[in-house]
């Protein structure tokens, strides 16, 4: 649809602009302000330029949690996207069974994030949790509070449990929008199941999949509450992701300058990667 050029449309956007400016721009300016100053107390601030940024970029603790974060987000996407597509393909197409599946699958999405952490904290315990107990019964030594690998796998499993439903539901709604005639044509051509998936379903899923990848990347990159409740970032700092490192720095140690510089770098990374995805989305929209 062609859009009409009309600058008066700004009046309609103004409320959103003011609201978001209030709740994003002012705080962001505060962060920028902190990031270039060394603050000793009220009225005692010194301009230090890019000093904090240099220090943060050289900080090993931060580099470690950045690497950890990328590995985590990578695994999240690698597991959740294919699994989500698979689940969506299996869901009943319509009727009461379809609605029921939809609601049941959506349940993990509706649970507050700290409760997600609590659920897994209980569920994965060796003594009172079904999962931890079951694994131990199989003769595998499993303890997510003591062993680094176990902690990682538990956090990853928790995230897969928590967010695969979102990918599945996105793909499901994409699949529902494919006209029945496409499938009939495929049947006449005696297309194999794989061909149907590869040449009919997957191309039609493209735009939803970009949304899914974008949302999953952003949210997994900001993960905080769930691992914090589950493992507290441990053992050691093996499951301490970026947000937790930042929160500890800002609130725990009250290290304002460094935390602010870190915030900006963090934000820029998310922004940069998301911008690439966003360009891909608008590109896909145009093609249609």
């Amino acid at each position: 649809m062609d859009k009409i050029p009309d600058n008066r449309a700004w009046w309609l956007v103004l409320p959103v602009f003011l609201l978001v400016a209030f709740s994003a721009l002012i705080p962001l300016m505060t962060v920028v302000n902190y990031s270039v100053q060394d603050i000793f107390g009220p009225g005692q601030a010194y301009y230090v330029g890019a000093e904090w940024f240099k220090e943060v970029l050289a900080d090993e603790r931060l580099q470690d949690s950045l690497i950890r974060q990328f590995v985590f987000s990578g695994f999240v996407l690698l597991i959740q996207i294919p699994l989500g597509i698979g689940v969506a393909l299996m869901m009943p197409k319509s009727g009461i069974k379809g609605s029921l599946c939809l609601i049941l699958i959506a349940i993990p999405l509706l649970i507050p994030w700290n409760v997600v952490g609590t659920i897994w904290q209980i569920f994965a315990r060796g003594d009172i949790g079904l999962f931890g107990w079951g694994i131990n019964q199989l003769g595998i030594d499993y303890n997510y509070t003591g062993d680094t690998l176990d902690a990682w796998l538990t956090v990853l499993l928790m995230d897969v449990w928590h967010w695969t439903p979102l990918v599945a539901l996105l793909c499901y709604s994409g699949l529902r929008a494919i006209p029945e005639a496409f499938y009939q044509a495929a049947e006449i051509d005696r297309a194999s199941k794989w061909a149907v998936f590869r040449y009919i379903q997957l191309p039609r899923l493209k735009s939803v999949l970009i949304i899914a990848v974008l949302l999953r990347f952003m949210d997994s990159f900001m993960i905080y509450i769930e691992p914090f409740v589950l493992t507290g970032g441990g053992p050691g700092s093996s499951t301490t992701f970026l947000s937790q490192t930042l929160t500890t720095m800002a609130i725990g140690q009250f290290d304002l300058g460094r935390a602010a510089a870190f915030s900006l770098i963090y934000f820029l990374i998310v922004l940069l990667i998301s911008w690439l995805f966003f360009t891909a989305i608008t590109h896909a929209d145009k093609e249609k």
Partner: protein
Amino acid sequence: MRQTRSKNVGITLFILLLLTPVYWLLNMSFKTNQEILGGLTLWPQTFTFDNYAVIFTDPSWYNGYLNSMLYVSINVVITLSVALPAAYAFSRYKFLGDKHLFFWLLSNRMAPPAVFLLPFFQLYSSIGLFDTHIAVALAHCLFNVPLAVWILEGFMKGVPREYDEMAYIDGYSFPRFFIKVFLPMIRSGIGVTAFFAFMFSWVELLLARTLTSVDAQPIGAIMTRTIGASGIDWGVLAAAGVLTIVPGLLVIWFVRNHVAKGFALGRV
């Protein structure tokens, strides 16, 4: 036929696995602490409602739920009322800086809440809104408004502009057209947007916890109290957790007929 059956088995298995952790929480909420710590039981041997009774009789517990529901509702109302006109503008008009504005809005959905923790605390303290529901509702607008604009814009693009033009020819003013004609046409989009706004505000804790202390404290923050001197009160913790799932279930039940379309954010 065999294909459908294997699909059914697969999906049933997935849902069962998905619900097991939730069942475990539910199971635990009906047990006494002695039974929880005494050993593994697949269902409550001594069935008890005591854990729920603790929550429903203690104001400092149930107020947490009321606080959460209040700021979530305020957030949904604010989000929808500002996002609807903006989404209309984005879907219908080309104006100065529209693309940049749109990306800037979306970029706020990408901002890690941890980045805004401290500035938010200072901002809302300095204007005297600290520990109020409105502060949390406004803070959650940071990620809900951009998402709402994005979803609604997708739905509005699906309505041909001929409707707008017809309404003007018939003598409708813009507000009257917008409320009487346009909004009813995208009601499933509005329902889905409300659902997403509810969901993301309800599940968020980091900002909600930082901006409140007593009067507007969300249930998530209150749940940490179950860790007392005598260890964790597992039963009450489980019961509190189960109760946080209920509002979400109610909301998704109301929009169940629209979610299939809505989950694609109006983009298929």
